[in-house]
């Protein structure tokens, strides 16, 4: 399978003197020096981008001041966390993060699979390809572009919805960027528009992998189209759906930052329903320069996120060894 699960390195017999192991290691390094050289640059980049920041999460326990520098600053114990969890912010961003992600995940799944099943029934190959080409188009736009598209509909004065559609229902001059209540729906719609097409193409690939003989045999027995879908396609698709969903559940502590930051135009009036951990950390770090708060939230996200990934993977592994990440 694609991702290796790390096998334990074979242990040398304990009777062997450690000098011998060391010599083997040296010999291997010399013998495979070219291969080692090949992966060194990337390994160093991973060190910079991933490993050093991993250890850096401990600045959450520091009271950083710029005179002493980051490493030299005094330890603060749990102070940063006490401040973070004393505010209502921590609760709000946690609920928002998990709430949005779970809803996106489940509704996205149902819609993607539904569309995948439907497009599988389009017989004309060329037409089907054409629909797919259009469907995945939104996914190629950056969230900044998406924010412009939403803005084109919701611009307080000129927006298409605001100017031409909402007045038909008696709402004049609505400034959506001031109405926090509307944003769960707006963000959901935006997210679905952006991601459902590509999701269904993935599931379509899984459907086309189902053996034709199954369907032929069922038709022989007089099964209707509906029964083919409910009794063959969906059951055979279920393992893929379950595994993908579980693995994605591991990521529900991280959000699509662009969606929550750009599409809302970072409007302060919308924070109650649109603030998630990622935007909270970003704002603390860049805009408010509150390193204590943002590093505490950052630590919280990293650690809880790690346990979610591990938990999700253990679940996936119990269901199907091959599909788990490790």
């Amino acid at each position, binding site marked *: 399978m694609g991702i290796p699960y790390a096998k334990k390195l074979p242990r040398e017999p304990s009777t062997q003197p450690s000098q011998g192991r060391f010599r083997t290691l040296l010999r291997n390094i010399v013998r495979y020096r070219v291969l080692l050289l090949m992966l060194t640059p990337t390994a160093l980049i991973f060190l910079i*981008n991933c490993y*050093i920041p991993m250890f850096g999460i401990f600045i959450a326990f520091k009271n950083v001041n710029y005179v002493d520098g980051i490493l030299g600053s005094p330890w603060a114990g749990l102070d940063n966390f006490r401040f973070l969890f004393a505010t209502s912010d921590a609760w709000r961003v946690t609920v928002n993060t998990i709430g949005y992600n779970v809803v996106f995940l489940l509704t996205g799944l149902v819609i993607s699979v539904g569309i995948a099943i439907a497009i599988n029934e389009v017989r004309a190959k060329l037409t089907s390809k054409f629909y797919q080409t259009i469907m995945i188009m939104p996914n190629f736009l950056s969230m900044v572009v998406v924010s412009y598209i939403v803005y084109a509909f919701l611009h307080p004065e000129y927006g298409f919805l605001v100017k031409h559609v909402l007045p038909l229902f008696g709402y004049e001059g609505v400034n959506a960027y001031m109405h926090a209540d509307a944003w769960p729906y707006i963000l959901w719609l935006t997210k679905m528009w952006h991601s459902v097409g590509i999701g269904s193409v993935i599931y379509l690939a899984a459907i086309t992998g189902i053996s034709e003989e199954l369907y032929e045999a069922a038709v022989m027995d007089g099964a209707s189209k509906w029964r083919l879908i409910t009794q063959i396609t969906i059951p055979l698709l279920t393992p893929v759906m379950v595994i993908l969903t579980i693995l994605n559940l591991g990521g529900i502590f991280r959000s699509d930052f662009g969606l929550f930051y750009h599409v809302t135009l970072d409007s302060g009036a919308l924070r109650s329903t649109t603030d998630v951990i990622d935007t909270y950390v970003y704002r603390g770090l860049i805009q408010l320069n509150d390193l204590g708060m943002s590093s505490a939230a950052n630590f919280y996200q990293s650690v809880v996120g790690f346990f979610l990934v591990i938990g999700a993977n253990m679940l996936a592994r119990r269901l199907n060894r091959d599909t788990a990440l490790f």
Partner: protein
Amino acid sequence: MKSAEVVKPYQRVSRPANVLLHLFFILFSLACILPILLIVAISFSNEQALTLSGYKFWPDQIDLSAYRFMLTDSSTLIKAYGVTLTVTIVGSVLAVLLIALYAYPIYRKDFPFKNLFSFYLLVTMLFSGGLVPFYLLYINYLDLRDSLIALILPGLSNAFYIFITRTFFQQTIPEEMIESGKLDGASEWRIFFQLVLPISLPVLATVGLFTTLMYWNDWFNSMLFINDTDKFSLQYVMIQMIRQAEFFKNQLAGTGVGLMVQEAVPTESLRMAMVVLSIGPILFVYPFFQKYFTKGLTVGAIKG
């Protein structure tokens, strides 16, 4: 496509169902594409007409002044295009090369450190230090503020693409081929560049397209690391513009200057023209590469 496709019995759909099916997909396709066309329509609209009757899917008056304005006062745009193109080209070429160079050793069965270096990647997929330490490292220790390196380096550590590439090697390049190359006296580098890379073009194209798209669409690293206006990427200029137009209006509303600014610069259509120019290359190119994109996605999703 051949017109005489054989329709097997289980594939048959009744005529009304078929009509409904196509109707659904036509509507769905429209829902996907119309919002993009709204942006295009606004960019071709007359500024006065926009302020009077709002954004429309079909402009009252077609007007190219936004595009004309960008041609005459194009320094920002050209600089931004330059930054985005540089970062995208350098970044993607480096990314593909580095991915292949890492995937190859961990594909080799005889490489004794294979598991160690696979595990080294896997850990980065499970645990992330998050934004704060990453940011502080780049700014305070590597001193990368306002450096294009800060826009390229973060995209060069994608464990997922390395695993996809390694899986491809495992499925298409038999170990014996490498062995015979060695017996013929070829060096490791030669085997990699002249045997492995040419066979791997499909996966390299897939990964290359994904990274190209990632760099082209990236705005996050600019938000973190770039202050110098000369180094604004296209995406970042767009972020600035959606905020600044509001800023202009609020600051200058009522004063004569406000009117003048509005008069002279087709703000609304100009912004949208900018968006059109930023998505143009992608929308133009991607249908040709759709095959690779879907292949890459399925490898990642089903086999991962």
